[in-house]
């Protein structure tokens, strides 16, 4: 990977934008097989002391890089803008084309956050979707950028208070499309539950669900609630808030029809990585299915009166946290209609907190 770099202290947005244009023009003139990527603007607002860590996370997203990343690092006491613009590229081989990506780091002060739109707007590529990720809060910045952005990327598992985390996600969703990394952590589980109940004969058993237990890493309760909320919203359950279960998670009921109900349990699991550790659903007639995180995929265990006990591995590589963030960037181009209903149900289920 090669890089062309420009930097300036005490600069301004016009100078940054002009520098980016000039870097791209010069590089394209030097090698016409290099073309700028035009996919997505990503605006990241971070505390300056954590800038390196966030930059490292962004580097680990695999191939799902935004084409223009604007990292705004907030530094106490600063009143001027310092900026570094980098155009990076791999020289194309074999007569193909090469793609250039742009990254800008802007150091700014807290006083400038309320007018962050006047700094960011001139620097984003017009006509491309713009995503905002503000992992350290900075609500003032998010408010200022409201009209600039199309998508808000957040992680409801990042905020220890799950009630507040889900309320924040709902607030953001009311203003822009939300990509929630906590929701994306549930994707393989949703896919597998959907697959498990896909054969028509099994779909009918969805009405006889009696229990659902979700095991999650301690910091990933939002993911667990979103998974429960997804099932509840898709199956039209009448939900009630879950209650703390003697320090061992949460439990409660959702009514499916009349007096029939589903027992819902959220349990913390001893797991290093964020996300879910396992899920068990039980149906009437003695059938149950468990999916648990395992090497090489999910370990499925099924028990039913007609087929007895069975266990098998559902293949799939772990994406890791870098992969989850990359998936979040990719999802900025898509629209998932089930997140909103799942979030509303998750808020209701988790309303009473611990």
């Amino acid at each position: 990977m090669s890089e062309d770099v420009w930097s300036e202290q005490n600069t301004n947005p016009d100078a940054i934008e002009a520098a980016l244009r000039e870097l791209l023009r010069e590089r394209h003139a030097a090698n016409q097989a290099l073309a700028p990527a035009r996919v997505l603007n990503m605006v990241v607002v971070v505390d300056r002391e954590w800038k390196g860590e966030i930059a490292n996370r962004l580097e680990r997203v695999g191939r799902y890089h935004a084409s223009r990343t604007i990292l705004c690092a907030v530094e106490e006491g600063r009143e001027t803008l310092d900026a570094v613009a980098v155009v990076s590229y791999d020289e194309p081989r074999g007569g193909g084309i090469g793609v250039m990506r742009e990254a800008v780091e802007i150091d700014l002060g807290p006083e400038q956050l309320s007018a962050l739109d006047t700094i960011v707007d001139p620097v984003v590529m017009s006509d491309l979707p713009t995503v905002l990720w503000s992992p350290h809060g900075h609500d003032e910045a998010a408010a200022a950028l409201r009209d600039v952005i199309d998508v808000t990327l957040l992680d409801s598992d990042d905020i220890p208070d799950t009630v507040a985390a889900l309320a924040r996600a709902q607030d953001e969703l009311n203003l822009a499309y939300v990509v929630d990394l906590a929701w994306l952590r549930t994707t393989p589980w949703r896919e597998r539950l959907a697959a498990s109940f896909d054969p028509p004969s099994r779909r009918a058993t969805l009405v006889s669900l009696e229990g659902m237990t979700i095991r999650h890493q301690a910091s990933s309760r939002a993911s667990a609630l979103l998974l429960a909320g997804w099932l509840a919203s898709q199956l039209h359950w009448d939900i009630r808030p879950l209650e703390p279960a003697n320090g061992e998670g949460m439990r409660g009921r959702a009514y499916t029809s009349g007096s029939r109900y589903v027992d819902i349990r959220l349990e913390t699991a001893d797991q290093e990585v964020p996300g879910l550790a396992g899920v068990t659903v039980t149906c009437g007639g003695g059938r149950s299915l468990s999916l648990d995180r395992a090497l090489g995929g999910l370990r499925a265990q099924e028990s039913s009166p007609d087929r007895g006990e069975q266990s098998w591995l559902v293949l799939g590589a772990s994406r890791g946290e870098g992969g989850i963030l990359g998936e979040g960037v990719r999802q900025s181009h898509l629209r998932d209609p089930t997140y909103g209903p799942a979030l509303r149900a998750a808020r209701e289920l988790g309303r009473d907190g611990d």
Partner: protein
Amino acid sequence: MQSAAVATEFEQENPLIAGLERLPVRSTALVIFGATGDLAHRKLLPALYNLAHEGALPERFEMIGVARRDQEDLDFREMARESIERFSRRRPDPPVLDGLTAEMRYVPGAFDDDEVYSELGGVLREFDERAGEPLNRIFYLSTAPQFFPVIAGKLGAAGLSECENAETRIVIEKPFGYDLSSARQLNAEVLDVFDESQVFRIDHYLGKETVQNLMALRFANALFEPVWNRNFVDHVEITAAEDIGIGGRAGYYEGAGALRDLVQNHMMQLLALLTMEPPTSFNADRVRDEKLKVLEAIVPPAIEDVSKMSVRAQYGPGTIGGKRVPGYRGEEGVDPNSRTETYAALRLHVSNWRWADVPFYLRTGKQLARKLTEIAVTLKPVPHLAFQSIGSVGVQPNQIILTVQPDEGVSVTLGAKIPGPRMRIRPVNMEFRYGTSFMSESPEAYERLILDAMRGDATLFTRGDEIEALWGIIDPILTAWHDDTTSPIPQYPAGSAGPPEADALLEDDRKWRRL
């Protein structure tokens, strides 16, 4: 009562699939005939790994390899691991690779040996018993084509062409037939055992993202549709140029030639997708109905007209990338007097309301100047030109160019003013490249096609009547070329743009685009 109504609603549609990008695939046992062959080695096994890596394989997935080589399950698993490690587009994740290969089974034997099918049936039943339910079955025929009817017939005789409470499908690799007569014969033999809905004839070109994007470009953009007809289109060129020779495939290529190898399938599919009417829905039969209609509108040439609408040629010795290469007749395994074409160019017409009188020029060849697959749609010139063209290239007709490889994308040539005091015009390009606009790496065509076959979605597969229509267009050309045993075959230097004889196909001062 409410519960019963909801149960019925759920039975009709799975409420859990809404919003999911990856739709469920029923648990499946995949049987690959020819599992030790080159296609399985380079494409099929790596494609299966990538599907497993992404979590796209069915909840329960089993695989059986069938081939003549006498070896054990363990040997086959080791071979599969090596294929995946060498040819997968991503580095394998060891636990996923272990999980995928751990239970692979292998059945050795000749494809016409009843014992093979008896043993295969036993392994499939074993899988069903282990799963506690019958798995869907896919028989993937990745063998030499002469075995296609043999295997289909033996599967039927062994009672493996259908399974109670599960779907059974057969995937057949190309070439599907050698000419119209053999394609009809093969269709009849396969359809004697399987229903058309069970048969998935592969043309892997249809699994390529750019080829599918042809439909998106045409039917999701109001920009192109108004000009997509005889009123605005002057002519269309479809090029599939290769900068390599026949490699070690002399045995196959001598019997096939460029017309069968690329034109009858890949290039004609591109032509069909380019010219078909919009389907009413993106459903397998609706799309294939439209393709069939447009293929039937291409009038096959009379034998005596073949020499006027087609050119064949062979590459002679030449230089590619600064390296001397032998001519086709000098390649190892090739008859020194071979009349097999390594280059074919055709002029076709689609005789319908939309395309009447628009010529479609197709060309393909080996050992050409560069590797390039593209469709170039040239529009008619503007009716009146107010600008002086002195001192400039002048106004050229607009072209819409869809590049399939090497850099997938679309470009449009436009006339633009050259900066300066005078009104001088030259063509400029407006380009869209997949690589710059999408972050995702395109999956291999085989990944998409295997998954579609497991789902039972035949949109990207060729239907029986479609394959016969394709052969129907090509058959007279094959016959005329076959019957002509005396005319010299034009030679073009390896590394060139092809034979000058191909220029004569283009009327009205048109010229082939530069490779």
